[in-house]
């Protein structure tokens, strides 16, 4: 120990402290990203001993085959339903609870807890519960519909309906999360602005919302939208639990297709191409999210 110079010892300490985490990042993150990018250009199958380079064929297949397109459009529809649904509802709940905080703070807290429950609950287990809620004959939803003389629906078995059913479960799961973000945004709005608006004649709840709350919430709303999009693009648990992409691929999504092609059919090359497309989308969203966070910090 004493044989080593002080500088060497310092370098060894640096390596001892920062080395393991750095090495782990290389092995489990950067190397796999490089490999998956390369695999996407091959026809490699899990277990095969050889493979050949096939250029962009996997990508072509994804964008031109019926199934590939279906997975992409389904994901886009899902995201397009979940973003407005959970952002608008999250905002409405947050506004309601923020106001209620003035006249019934306890009740407001109870509501907050209730709305946040789905975020904390295990989604796969809750999906199994949803399966029973939406069960064609034993489910409470169809029993309710029958009780008021409406036709029962096959929520998870109907090709035209299944994607929207999953979207509603997606909204159910994210409203509470968005509510928390909006509540934080609402708390950050200084009371003086509302007083000023009242002096200027914008005292009614409606006009104070449009003149103060909404403009001040702009950055938060943008942030919530991007974060919701990034999460919605990852939709997997509900699909894997409830539909396995079916019926007839009507609820197939990018991440589920990635899983099925790669780990059920062992088409590593094709699955890698889906992975890279998924990664590209999320990369754009995450960079956007960083930009928004930055703007939020410099806001005012």
């Amino acid at each position, binding site marked *: 120990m004493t044989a080593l110079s002080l500088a060497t010892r310092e370098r060894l300490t640096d390596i*001892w402290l920062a080395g393991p985490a750095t090495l782990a990042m290389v092995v489990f993150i950067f190397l796999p990203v490089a490999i998956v990018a390369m695999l996407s250009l091959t026809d490699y199958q899990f277990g095969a001993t050889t493979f050949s380079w096939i250029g962009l064929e996997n990508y072509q297949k994804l964008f031109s085959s019926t199934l590939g397109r279906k997975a992409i459009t389904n994901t886009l529809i899902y995201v397009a339903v979940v973003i407005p649904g959970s952002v608008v509802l999250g905002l409405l709940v947050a506004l309601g609870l923020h106001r209620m905080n003035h006249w019934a703070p306890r009740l407001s807290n109870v509501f907050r807890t*209730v709305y946040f429950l789905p975020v904390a609950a*295990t989604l796969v*287990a809750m999906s199994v519960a949803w399966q*029973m809620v939406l069960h064609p004959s034993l489910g409470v939803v169809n029993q309710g519909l029958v009780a008021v003389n409406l036709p029962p629906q096959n929520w998870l078995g109907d090709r035209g309906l299944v994607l929207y059913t999953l979207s509603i479960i997606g909204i159910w799961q994210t409203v509470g999360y968005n509510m928390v973000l909006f509540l934080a945004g609402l708390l950050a709005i200084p009371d003086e602005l509302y007083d000023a608006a009242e002096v200027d004649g914008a005292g009614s709840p409606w006009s104070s919302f449009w003149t103060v709350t909404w403009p001040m919430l702009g950055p938060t709303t943008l942030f919530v939208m991007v974060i919701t999009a990034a999460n919605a693009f990852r939709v*997997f648990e509900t699909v894997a639990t409830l539909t396995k992409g079916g019926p007839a691929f009507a609820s197939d999504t990018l991440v589920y297709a990635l899983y099925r092609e790669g780990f059920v059919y062992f088409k590593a090359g094709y699955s890698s191409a889906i*992975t890279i497309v998924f990664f590209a989308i999320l990369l754009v969203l995450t960079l956007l999210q960083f930009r928004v966070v930055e703007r939020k910090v410099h806001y005012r």
Partner: protein
Amino acid sequence: MTFNRFLGRALSLTLLTLGAVAILLPFIWMLSLAFKPQDEIFSASIQLLPSSIEWRNFVVALTETDVPRYLLNGLIVVFGILAFQILFSVPCAFALTQRRFAGRTLIFGMVLAALLVPFHVTAIPIFLGFAQLGLLNSYWALILPFIPTAFGIFLFRQFLAQVPAELFDAARVDGLSETAIVWRIAFPLALPAATAFAIFSITAHWNDLFWPLIATTDPHLATPPRGILFFRDEESGNDVGALMAATVLITAPLVLAFLFAQRKFPQGLATGGLKG
């Protein structure tokens, strides 16, 4: 004015209550089926609550199925991941904030880049590697890929950067080794960050289905979400009550943790939202 205010409050209360009922619906139905006797489950008429509390379903789930095993696996995996994540990321964050060395900027750049990579992207190569090494179907397969946590390093770095360097210098003068400083001084100081990170990490991995579905086929290694699917596919509609009791048991730990730590939970998960 006062009448309008009353009307506004009544309206918002009504709407919020309706929303809350919709949010609670799957929870109520899950609990209701879990406590219902068999014949009430299969009755076609609508009956929101059980006529009497029936514990049989829980007894079945706990004694005749692998649910306890799934819960144990969940604990092993979740705390295994958390322990390694902290063991790796706290020293790294300390080095990044409190030490000067050549690769510092590069490593921090790597952390930021790694934040952009969702886990799904790395799954195929990690699966391939684990298959080569014969690691699939083991606890290690479920734990190892999550050890590098860019988010953890980032969070601890943000926190430790605010600690004045003199504090650590004083410890150095007292003769403490750098490793001792990390664990005896830096880590206790970073405990609030560690709590937020723990909530994020435990929730994410207790709930994860994607990787357990890929890395393990052995039912004895199933984590709670993987296990509940094994159970569902096995019972195939014959014992809905026990299945619902199992989902209650699997959902309960995190929900109870949330109910007991209501402020911390949303905070932890909201910080997690910053991660890509």
